[in-house]
């Protein structure tokens, strides 16, 4: 991905619309906007698109059966599976249609399923089926025997959010959107009646319209725009990842009970692991993505109840993500609306299910922009995304042969756990990935059961060599997170012992 050059303190440029936040929602908006004539900018404070909360998503596309009837989030999620399937074709991305089953383990919960079905259908979704214990067992042989009924839908699926965020951003950039990474917004000032001056840690941008898609930080951006009354309520949710070797235990997204404290959810991931969530606690602050022993144990219990054969020793990692709701809408609904104080500024305060609703949100934001005066004229030529990163591991044998024939580096496995090849790692780096975590999320090298202890040193070298920087400058996730601190007494890039 071509990055705009950094000159600071600098004037970065002028545009019609600036989108603050390159999470899945900001990236989706940027990509939709890039179909229109005009100049657009996407800015992100992290080192890479999707490195905020999008990275810690369950990566599931749901139906709106858990959204209140008539809610905005319900409306925006109505046909999400179809939207994502279409996008997957357009962007050459992976959407795994695994289906979902909301399970009732007690007699009194069966009623909840009917209510969920009604909510989903009222919100515009179709394709539900209430199923009994035999059908459940047939679809999910390892599910608890206590499961007596289920609400089944075939189309919901899973994807990998960091991969999608990257692809959407890449496609937006391909179509002219300027991307500024590592650019945290520090001020937004009205320059005149037509322009805002958005100051970032990388320089200033002049923009007529401002989209606040800053996720967890959208309250702070709102305050900079003069909307000091927007507040966010935070919850931290813990999720566990299980080894691929136990993937046969769960085939669909399985849901159990929902409460303030948890959403009981176990599902396959896009890459064939299992993901289990979500146990909620209150975070200390927006950066508190720590996971405690207790969080892990509570989360594990949620999974064990649905799938008794699940074992903690098959867990390969745990992580947590922060979810927010806003004070402007009731019942935890989204608030997507023009600013009350700043003209031509639009707040996108989402939350769960932000990923599911993202395509709907992008449509709505563009509609609001037009209402605010943006001229929406389609470009003559919209470039479809070039081919996605071909993956060696999931390719059939004949395709693997072709890949190696075209580039022999596909024959060199770098990450043994996920079978990621040198060609894939180099490919990702050449397309803009410049951190260890970036390589991990985009190629999966380091994502498997050894968590990078075997391939870490190779990935470090590929990053240093391809980017043309010393290994000491390679970071895990941006400035300050260097992987190594120096050279050994006799080590060093040139054997001269630079340190």
């Amino acid at each position, binding site marked *: 991905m071509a990055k705009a050059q950094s000159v600071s303190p600098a004037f970065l440029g002028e545009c019609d619309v600036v989108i603050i936040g390159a999470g899945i929602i900001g990236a989706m908006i940027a990509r939709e906007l890039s179909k229109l004539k005009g100049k657009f900018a996407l800015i992100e404070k992290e080192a890479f698109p999707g490195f905020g909360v999008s990275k810690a998503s369950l990566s599931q596309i749901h139906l709106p059966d858990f959204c209140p009837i008539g809610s905005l989030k319900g409306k925006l999620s109505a046909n999400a599976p179809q939207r994502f399937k279409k996008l997957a074709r357009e962007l050459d991305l992976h959407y795994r249609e695994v289906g979902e089953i909301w399970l009732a383990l007690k007699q009194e919960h069966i009623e909840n399923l009917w209510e969920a079905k009604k909510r989903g259908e009222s919100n515009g979704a179709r394709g539900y089926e209430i199923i009994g214990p035999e059908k459940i067992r047939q679809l999910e042989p390892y599910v608890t025997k206590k499961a007596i009924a289920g609400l089944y839908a075939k189309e919901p699926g899973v994807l990998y959010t960091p991969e999608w965020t990257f692809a959407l951003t890449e496609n937006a950039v391909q179509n002219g959107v300027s991307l500024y990474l590592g650019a945290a917004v520090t001020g937004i000032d009205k320059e005149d009646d037509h322009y805002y001056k958005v100051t970032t840690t990388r320089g200033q941008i002049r923009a007529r319209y401002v989209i606040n898609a800053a996720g967890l930080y959208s309250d702070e951006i709102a305050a900079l725009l003069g909307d000091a009354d927007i507040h966010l309520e935070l919850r931290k949710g813990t999720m566990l990842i299980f080894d691929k070797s136990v993937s046969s235990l769960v085939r669909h997204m399985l849901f159990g009970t929902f409460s303030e404290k948890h959403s009981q959810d176990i599902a396959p991931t896009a890459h064939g692991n299992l993901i289990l969530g979500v146990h909620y606690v209150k975070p200390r602050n927006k950066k508190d993505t720590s996971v405690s022993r207790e969080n892990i144990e509570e989360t594990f219990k949620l999974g064990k109840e649905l799938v008794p054969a699940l074992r903690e020793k098959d867990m390969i990692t745990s992580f947590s993500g922060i979810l927010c709701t806003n004070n402007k809408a009731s019942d935890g609904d989204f608030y997507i609306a023009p600013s009350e104080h700043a003209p031509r500024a639009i707040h996108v305060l989402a939350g769960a299910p932000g990923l599911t609703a993202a395509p709907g949100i992008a449509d709505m934001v563009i509609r609001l922009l037009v209402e605010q005066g943006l001229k929406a004229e389609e470009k003559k030529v919209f470039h479809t995304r070039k081919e996605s990163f071909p993956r060696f591991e999931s390719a059939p044998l004949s395709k693997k042969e072709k890949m190696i024939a075209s580039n022999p580096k596909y024959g060199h496995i770098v990450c043994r756990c996920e079978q990621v090849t040198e060609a894939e790692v180099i490919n990702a780096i050449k397309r803009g990935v410049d951190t260890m975590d970036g390589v991990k999320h985009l190629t999966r090298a380091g994502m498997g059961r*050894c968590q990078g202890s075997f391939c870490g040193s190779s990935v470090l070298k590929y990053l240093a060599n391809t980017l043309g920087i010393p290994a000491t400058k390679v970071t895990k996730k941006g400035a*300050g*997170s260097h992987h190594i601190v120096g050279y050994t007494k*006799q080590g060093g890039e040139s054997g001269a012992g630079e340190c």
Partner: protein
Amino acid sequence: MLKRSKLDIAIIGSGPAGLAAAVEADRRGVKNLVVFERDELPGGILRQCIHNGFGLEKFKEELTGPEYANRYIKMAESAGIDIELNTTVLEIEKDRTLTSVSEHSGLRKYECKSIILAMGCRERPRGALGIPGTRPAGIFTAGHAQRLINIEGYMPGEKVVILGSGDIGLIMARRLTLEGAEVVAVAEILPYSSGLIRNVVQCLNDYEIPLLLSHTVAEIHGDKRVEGVTLVKVDTDWNPIKRTEQYVECDTLLLSVGLIPENELSKQAGVLIDPKTGGPYVNDCLETSVEGIFSCGNVLHVNDLVDNVSNEGELAATGAYERIKGKTLGRERIMEVEADEGVGQVVPQKISGDRETIFYLRVKKPMGKMVLRVGENFEKKFSYARPSEMIRLKIPKKIFSQMGSSVSKLQIRCEER
């Protein structure tokens, strides 16, 4: 169509187990064999183990890891053994078809009469432990840090806390100190070290590095790079004891918290795994539950001494040789070997009783004077035993002959005396 070749023996991995197996198979006259190595050089993890202490039994001298590996590499070279470097085995099937891939030869399929699994083990990562806290840079498994320092010439950190007192952790404490880093402490959740005593003395005591027994990391701090860890004392059930937390400033956390035999390929081929060892169930020729597939070294069970690993490689090669010569490997009479009272794990788990057999086992907890009993008619006394030191027990064939053909279960147990 992929190129298909036939092999007498395929050996997966060219660490000490794989190399010893290759040399032994060649010595017995098996010439159609290939060793598959995913790294760019043979030797496996020994390449990064530049400390000495290897080979006391095999070569009667103290060698470094690379020196020990080189002895076998030279033997393999002079025998003209084919070691395919930079080549990863992607899959093995129950019928012993193997698929490999490399940059230089692409995809290949081999139909093998025998396969010897010698893939070694991997380190338990942070995620599997669920250590609480943030996710900054500066957290390494001890072996990853060892590779960075000893092979790449990089320093992973300046001020280091090590969690776990396994041998690699202990050796890395010394190594980091010699390279100028400060090792603040080694924390061990057990009330005793999980490494060899000589390593505690030579790697910690000699450098005045504190070993905090019954301690663990309660939390990792730092947003971008590790800034510190909270250490806490634990009770006998590993529960943190309140008000014993202490914050220790550091930029690096090394994890030396256990090794896991790497059996993903084995499982694909249908090889059954013993949950106690994490490696395949094997018989007295180290043949797994799948005929013609053998296992040796750290993929079979985690060893302490490389000499034992080489011995296992030779035994597996002998088994594979006999298998391709059409021998039945004593599958007629099977005695199940059971790790009974006080014994945590044992290899092999099934024996024929047709040959002298070496059992490798570990006790469950540290013991003083004790006696180890094998079945009803064999015992051996020990002055002490520790889980960190594998016990090697050689049982002559005549002991099995005395047992009579009706015995189908052999219990191995130990008692304090």
